[in-house]
């Protein structure tokens, strides 16, 4: 069903011919390639071509004006001693590895509360889902900038209790936290996926467990979690991939500079500054490939680790 299960079943099913394929055994190459033409052109011109090009550029010094000059591994060795880049990695990792689990935990929690045929469910679901549609917009980032400002909404509320809050986004120790909170706020999309997953767990499992005297907590750990684990895994993979690429919120909240003192300088923000601020296209390309590599490695780790905790019903 999902792209991820499709990908993994893709490797599993190798060699086997499905009934569907047997039925339509004859090939329609001409019709197929005509139908696929826009996608194929896009794949070559918009995706694979630029990917190879950026791989090449990552070994060059290129500023758009002069032709690229081959510098070998220069960009990569520069990265090793680029303290701002190391910091941007730290910021990004913090964001991903705190923001994603937190967001998924909230999504799962609310989905669990929502699941059991609650009255008013569609209304609640809409309320929780709406922020995930708006969260990626510049407008919401602007709102966040105000809310967590020195005299913003959060501090106004705290002041009612006599607490003087910090300037959340102007303080390097809390700025990233406010952006992580924005990410958590958009838990609605994974929540919907969890809800769909919870619906699919056969009610008889719970009935049988109840007959055997299992507590609610036991039911959760022994039935819900294993049955839901493929969906948790799916959400985890996609959210990690997506969060590594977060850009807009940090850009708007920090006014484009990743401040204060680089505390919200995401890797993508630094890449943007290098590539489109300083037109250091070679370095930016090298960074892009490092990003791809990092995402690839974490996705691979995720897939490997999934063998130990994701439960397959087949």
């Amino acid at each position: 069903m999902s792209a991820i299960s499709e990908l993994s079943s893709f490797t599993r099913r190798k060699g086997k011919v499905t009934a569907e394929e047997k039925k339509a055994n004859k090939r329609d190459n001409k019709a197929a390639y005509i139908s696929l033409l826009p996608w194929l052109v896009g794949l070559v011109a918009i995706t694979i071509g630029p990917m190879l090009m950026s791989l090449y550029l990552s070994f060059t010094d290129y500023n758009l004006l002069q032709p690229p000059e081959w510098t070998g591994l220069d960009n990569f060795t520069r990265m090793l001693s680029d303290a701002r880049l190391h910091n941007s990695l730290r910021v990004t990792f913090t964001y991903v590895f705190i923001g994603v689990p937190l967001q998924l935990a909230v999504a799962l929690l609310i989905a669990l509360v929502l699941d059991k045929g609650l009255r008013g469910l569609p209304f609640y679901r809409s309320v929780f889902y709406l922020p995930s549609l708006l969260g990626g917009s510049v407008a919401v980032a602007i709102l966040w900038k105000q809310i967590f400002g020195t005299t913003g909404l959060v501090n106004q509320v705290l002041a009612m209790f006599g607490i003087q809050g910090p300037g959340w986004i102007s303080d390097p120790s809390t700025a990233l936290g406010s952006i992580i909170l924005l990410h958590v706020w958009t838990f609605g999309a994974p929540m919907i996926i969890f809800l769909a997953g919870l619906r699919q767990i056969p009610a008889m499992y719970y009935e049988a467990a109840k007959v055997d005297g299992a507590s609610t907590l036991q039911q959760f750990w022994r039935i819900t979690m294993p049955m839901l684990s493929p969906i948790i895994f799916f959400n985890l993979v996609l959210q990690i991939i997506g969060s590594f690429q977060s850009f807009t919120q940090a850009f708007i909240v920090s006014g484009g500079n990743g401040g204060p003192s680089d505390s919200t300088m995401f890797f993508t923000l630094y890449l943007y500054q290098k590539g489109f601020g300083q037109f250091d296209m070679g370095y930016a390309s090298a960074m892009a490939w490092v990003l791809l590599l990092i995402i690839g490695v974490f996705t691979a780790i995720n897939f490997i680790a999934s063998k130990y905790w994701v439960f397959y019903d087949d």
Partner: protein
Amino acid sequence: MTTKLETLPSPEKKSTGAGKPTNRKPRVRESRGTLAFSRAQRGKSLMKHGILIVAGALMIYPLLWMVVSSLRPNEMIFREPGLWLNSLEMSNYTSGWSALTHPFGHYMLNSAIVVIGSILGNLVSCSMAAYAFARLQFTGKKLFFGIMLLTIMLPFHVVIVPQYILFSQIGWVNTFWPLLVPKLLATDAFFVFLMVQFIRGIPRELDEAARIDGAGHPRIFLRVILPLMVPALATTTIFTFIWTWNDFFGALIYLTDPDMFTVPVALRAFVDSQSATSWGSLFAMSIVSLLPVFLVFLFGQRFLIKGIATTGIK
């Protein structure tokens, strides 16, 4: 993993519940019927509603506060955390509308052009590719399908530098083409996948009946498949609308001329040009920019929820 995710509500089952997102489960009715509902259970349900109402209010409060604040005199934004309105102040909207080089409607129009172009591009190119993947046998199908799935997860940043170079050499910077052409070439592989899933759920007998009647592939695609995949097309339309309307990164890179600004980059220019004194008008235009997304959410909710529940992507 496959089976679990495959049992998510799939497109072919959609028709039954399409009209009513409520989809009430029989469980609800049962519990209401048995009035000998234990006290503990009623307490539990009350607690659930309590949690959901508090959580939901917390989620939505910032948005409501932004709406209310946009209708207040500017200095109140930093003083009034409540939602009570003493008077309606429309001046934020009038001043915000004309705060930039062009009236805000100009940027909305630019955004509308990009959004409509993107929707048309995605509908045509993705459905063509999906038809080939779902219905036709051709050399290299498995390989291409695998690549298509992988490109869903490919970070945009890996291709952005060469893409920028490519489009700037063609002279397309500060035109909408760099934002539109990729959509015409089905690079939003997510939608290809969504449509493949949907077409697989359409009975093959329909194709075969048409084939026996002498229809070729173009005819089967246009006359049989396309009319039946309207729900998938609707989901694609709505997601494309929201994602394109919110898209900041692409517009930030390719649109630097204020004439060509879409709404997100216009808002960003607004943030940068204003000191903290005009939050009211900034909020007002943020609300204006969120309004189309909100309306789409209101009317297209069922497609959105089905869309993410079936394919599991935000």
